[in-house]
C-alpha cells in the first residue's frame, strides 16, 4: 500500500509536469509557424492557380486566419486543453488525421524496436561473453557499421536487393491489417528492418557494456562460489541486472522514433505521423502541424514516463529511493 500511494503521487507529479512541457512546446511551434514565410491559403486554393484577392480574403476569413495571432493562439490553446485539436485547413478534424496516422508510426516504431532488440541483445551478449576474442571484434565492428550507414541508403539497398531483385517483399506502401494481414506484415518488414538495423547496433553496444559491467561485480563471483551453473548465472542473474539500462535505452529510442521515422516513412511510403507532419509543414497547414507536434511530444513524454516506471519496477533500489 505504501508503495502504491507513492507511485500514484509520483506519476501524478510527472503528468502535471508533462502538461507544462506540452504547453511550452505548443507555444513554441505556434510562434515558429507564424514567423515562417509562406501562405497556406494560396496553397489551398491550388498551388498552380491564380486566385483573386477576394477569394483569398474570403478563404482566410473562413479559416479564421485573419484574426490577430494572439487570439488565434488562445483559441487553439483553449480547444486543445479540452482535447479538441481543431480542424486542419482543408476542413478535416486534426484528430482524425492524427488517429489515422499515429498508430501506423507507432506500429513501425514498435516493429523496428522489436527487430532491433531481437538482433541487438543476443549480439551484445555474445560480444560480452566472448570479450576480447574474434567474435567480439567482429560483432563490434558490425555494430559500428550499423550505426554509421544512413537510414535512407540502407533502405534503398534493401529495396533494391530484397524487393526488386529477389522479389521477396513489396517495396513500399501500406495495407490495412483487416484487409490482408499477411500483406500488411510483408509491407511492414522492410521498413522495420531498415529502422531496426541501426538501432540494433546501438542496443548491441549497450548490451555488451552493460553485461561487462555486471560481470565484473562481486555478486557474480558469489553466485559462482555457490556452485551455480554458468548458464544460470548469465541468463538469470547477470542478464536480469544488465537489463535495466538496456530497457531504458530501448524505451528512449522508442520515444525518439515517434518523430524520427520520416525518412523511412518517405522511402517506403508508410503513411505515418512523421510523413503527415512533413507534408503539413510544406503546406503551412498550421493546425495540423501543431496537432501533430503536440501529439508526438505527448507520446514522447508518455513513453519516457513509462520507461521510468518500468525502470523502477525492474530495479528495486530505485523503488526504495522514491519512497
Amino acid at each position, binding site marked *: 500500500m505504501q508503495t502504491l500511494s507513492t507511485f500514484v503521487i509520483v506519476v501524478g507529479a510527472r503528468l502535471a509536469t508533462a502538461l507544462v512541457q506540452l504547453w511550452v512546446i505548443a507555444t513554441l511551434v505556434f510562434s515558429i509557424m507564424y514567423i*515562417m*514565410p*509562406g*501562405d*497556406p491559403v*494560396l*496553397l*489551398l*486554393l*491550388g*498551388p*498552380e*492557380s*491564380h*486566385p*483573386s*484577392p*477576394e*477569394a483569398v480574403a*474570403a*478563404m482566410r476569413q*473562413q479559416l479564421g486566419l485573419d484574426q490577430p495571432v494572439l487570439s488565434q493562439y488562445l483559441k487553439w490553446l483553449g480547444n486543445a486543453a479540452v482535447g479538441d485539436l481543431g480542424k486542419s485547413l*482543408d*476542413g*478535416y478534424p486534426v484528430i*482524425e*488525421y492524427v488517429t*489515422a*496516422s499515429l498508430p501506423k508510426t507507432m506500429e513501425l516504431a514498435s516493429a523496428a524496436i522489436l527487430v532491433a532488440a531481437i538482433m541487438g541483445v543476443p549480439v551484445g551478449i555474445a560480444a560480452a561473453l566472448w570479450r576480447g576474442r574474434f567474435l567480439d571484434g567482429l560483432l563490434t565492428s558490425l555494430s559500428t557499421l550499423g550505426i554509421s550507414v544512413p537510414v535512407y541508403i540502407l533502405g*534503398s539497398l534493401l*529495396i533494391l536487393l530484397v*524487393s*526488386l531483385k529477389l*522479389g521477396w517483399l*513489396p*517495396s*513500399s*506502401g*501500406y495495407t490495412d491489417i483487416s484487409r*490482408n494481414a*499477411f*500483406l500488411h506484415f*510483408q509491407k511492414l518488414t522492410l521498413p522495420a528492418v531498415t529502422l531496426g538495423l541501426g538501432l540494433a547496433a546501438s542496443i548491441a553496444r549497450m548490451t555488451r557494456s552493460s553485461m561487462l559491467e555486471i560481470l565484473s561485480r562481486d555478486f557474480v563471483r558469489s553466485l559462482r562460489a555457490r556452485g551455480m551453473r554458468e548458464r544460470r548465472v548469465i541468463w538469470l542473474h547477470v542478464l536480469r541486472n544488465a537489463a535495466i539500462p538496456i530497457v531504458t535505452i530501448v524505451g528512449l529510442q522508442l520515444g525518439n522514433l515517434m518523430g524520427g521515422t520520416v525518412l523511412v516513412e*518517405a*522511402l*517506403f*511510403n508508410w*503513411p505515418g505521423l512523421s*510523413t*503527415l507532419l512533413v*507534408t503539413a509543414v*510544406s*503546406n*503551412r497547414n498550421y493546425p495540423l502541424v501543431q496537432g501533430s507536434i503536440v501529439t508526438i511530444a505527448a507520446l514522447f513524454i508518455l513513453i519516457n514516463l513509462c520507461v521510468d516506471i518500468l525502470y523502477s519496477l525492474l530495479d528495486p533500489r530505485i523503488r526504495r529511493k522514491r519512497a
Partner: protein
Amino acid sequence: MKRILQMALAAGLLGLMTTTALAGGTLYFGLSAEPSTLDTIIQPGTAGRTVKLAMHRGLVNYGIDGKISPELAESYEISPDAKEYTFHLRDAKFHDGSPVTAADVKASLERILDPKGKGAFRNELSIISGIDTPDVKTVTLKLSQPSVSLMGYLALPESVIVPAAWLAKNADNATASPIGAGPFQFVNWTRGREIVVKKFPGYYKQGKPDLDEVHYVFYGDENTRVNALKSGDVDIIEYVPAKDATALEKGPDTKLLTMNGPFMGLQFNTKFEPFSKPEVRQAIAYAVDRSVIINTAFNGLGTPIYGIAIPEGYMGYSAEKANYFSHDIDKAKELLKKAGYPNGFEARLLASSQYSFHQNTAIAIQSELAKIGIKLTLDLPDWASRMAKANAGDYDFAVLGSLGEITDADWLSNYYYGGDKLVRTNNSPYFDDPQINEILDKGRATVDSAEREKIYGAFVDRALELSPLVFFMWRHQDYAVRTGVTGFTNMPGFLTFQSGFSIENTKIE
C-alpha cells in the same frame, strides 16, 4: 506441430494470391502528391486533376487526340459573333442517379463565376455575362465580349459540372464526398494514403470504363514511386524523374509514355531595374546555353526553345520565329552594353529547393549568366515560400516551369496580359504593354482562323521584341506503366497534365 505448418502454408498461399492485383479489375495509380482538395473549381495541381478527371466531366473536355470533345454536351453551337454559346446536353446521370440538367450546369458555372468564390479560372470565364436555361437540356451562355477561346476554358477540369442540389448543400463543406458525372465514382479518401474510386455503371459512354476500381495512391518521394512501379505495387505512375526515364523505358516490365509538355523559362519582375529593359531580357535569352540546363537538370532529356514557347501545330507557331534567339554570348554582351550595363549587374534568382529540377535549372542559369557578367544569388526556399514570394512579386526574376492551360492561343493571356492584377503566378510582375493587351483582346474575339493567325503572328513579334518572359526548353512530362496496362494516354502538348482523362479507356490485364 503439423497443424501449425499447414495453417502457415495456407496463410502464405492466401497472402500470395491477394498480393497480385485482381486481374482486369483494380488499377493502382501512383500519384506524386496528395491533392490539397477535390473541390472542382480549385486548380489543385496535376495529382488532384488526375483524380478529378476520373470522377467528373464538363460540358466539354479535352480528348485524347488533343481536341475538344463533347462530353455532357452532345453538341453545341457558337454564334457567328462569338458572343453566344448554346449547349445541348445529352442523357447523362450523376453518381447519385440524378440526371444532368441545365440547372446543374448553371449552378456549377455560377459557382465558378462568383467574384468572392475560389474559382481558379474565374477571371477567364468572367466574360460569361449570363446563363440561360431555356429547357432542361439546353444551356445558353451569353458573353459580354466575343471570345473564341471560351471553349478551351470550359473544357478544363475546373469547369466540370456537379449537381446543383449537391452544391446547395455542400458548397462550403470541404469534406463532403464529391458527386460528378464521370466514369468513376468516389468511394473514400484515406488521408495520407489513397483515394479510391469505383466504376460508375451509369456512365454515359457505353462499355466504359473498363476498370472496376482505381486506387490513387500518394507517393511523395519520387524514388519510392519508381520502385513501386518496378516492383508492381502500382500500375501507373506520373511525374517520372528524368534519371529513371531510360530504365523504365527499357523495361522489361515497364513502359514509358513520354511527352514534351511543360516549358522551363524565366519570369522577370519588370520593376527591378535592369529587368525593366527589354534589351537585358533579350540578352539573357541569348546568353544561356539551353543544353546546359537540359543536361544539368533533366539528364539530357528535353528540347531547347529559342523563341516563344508555342508548340508546333498550335496557333501562333511559326518555324522561322521559333529560332529567333540563339546561343550568342557576344550578342548578349552587346545588348547589355546598349542597355547600360557593360559590366553586368547583380540579381536574385528565385526557384525552389523542393523540386530538384527547379533548383538545378537555377544553378545552370547562374553559371551561364556569370559568363556575361550577371552575378546571381540563388533564392531556394521550399515551395510554399516560393509561392508566397511569387504572389507578392518579391523577387528579381524567377524560374518558371509551366504550360498553357488550354490549347487555344488565348493561353498566352495568362502569361502576357496586363490588366488590373499585375502580379500573378505566371506572368512577369508589373508588365503591362498596351499593344500586347490589345492584340490579345483582339485575338480572343476573332472568329476567322486565318485572321487569328495573323494577329497572333503580330503578337509573337511583339512578344519577342519585349521578351517579358524568356523560354529555355520543353521538358518531358512522362508517365510510366507496367506492361499489360493499355489505354492510358499521355495527352499531347499542353494537355499532358490532364491525362487523367484517359483513365476511362484504361485496361489492365
